[in-house]
């Protein structure tokens, strides 16, 4: 009887695990579709839209950042629990990256 109980418990756990993986997969597939959509919008804004550079450059940069967010949080599982330290690493890196890029495009002398 005890053995039967353990088996039922295991089956419930396996079922739960499968369901959760499936749910993760669904989120990842939706984020893939959104990433394709964002890519298409960015390419079309440059290829077919008659927008000024002042509008289109910030626009595609925003689209790229959103897409990278999906990649990091869903594809690379940063939205799962236990990813506080990786998030700290990545955000510190982004901070250094932004400061460096801003420095290079504003105070370059060549």
């Amino acid at each position, binding site marked *: 009887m005890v053995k039967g109980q353990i088996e039922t418990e295991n089956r419930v756990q396996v079922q739960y695990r499968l369901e959760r993986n499936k749910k993760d997969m669904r989120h990842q597939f939706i984020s893939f579709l959104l990433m394709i959509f964002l890519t298409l919008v960015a390419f079309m804004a440059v290829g077919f839209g008659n927008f000024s550079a002042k509008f289109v*450059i910030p626009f595609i940069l925003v689209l790229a950042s959103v897409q990278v967010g999906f*990649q990091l949080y869903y594809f690379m599982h940063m939205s799962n629990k236990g990813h506080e330290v990786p998030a700290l690493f990545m955000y510190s890196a982004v901070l250094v990256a932004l400061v460096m890029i801003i420095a290079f495009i504003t105070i370059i002398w060549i």
Partner: protein
Amino acid sequence: MQIQEKLSFETWPAAPEKETLEGQNKVLGFWLFLGGETVLFATLFATYLALKDSVPGPGHALAKDLFSMPLVFLMTMLLLTSSLTSVYAIYHMKNFNAKKMKFWFVVTVLLGLGFLACEIYEFNHYVRDFNHTFSSSAFGSAFYTLVGFHGAHVIFGLGWITGLVVRNWRRELSLYTAPKFYLASLYWHFIDVVWVFIFSVVYLMGMVG
């Protein structure tokens, strides 16, 4: 759980890549590495942005003369899809299905090879038809360093995943191999992260002018 323990579908943990201390350390260390890679690529992006279109004379090709949208779009789709297939691979890893996991990693490698072939064609085209080489201008140096470094990451990633799949071809999944596959997929996603900024900042912004 022990690292060398033989596990089954029923006993496979929910997060096999972090079940052992070794796995936890690997994942944490790998994220630190990815933070460093982000800064590394940022320096290359900063250099590119500062030196974009800096050419010594009027005869040299500029960004708006070089890039063609269909090829960049194809490369983007190949890499983005390969990112999804490696997500599939990890999904099957979490469900203790080694066969399907390896299948999707093989698909990832094939898509990555397609990307690489496009990039080789592209660089060859620039060198032959536009005389745009690594040493022809500051723009050329910055461009090939940034995009070439990304291409080198693709080559390394392909070698890594191929090595893992070949080494584990006949093996079942274990807590020893799970973190290895997980990290390879993280690396592959990171390559796509960098490519998103390359196609936006280098190619699309280059076409805008």
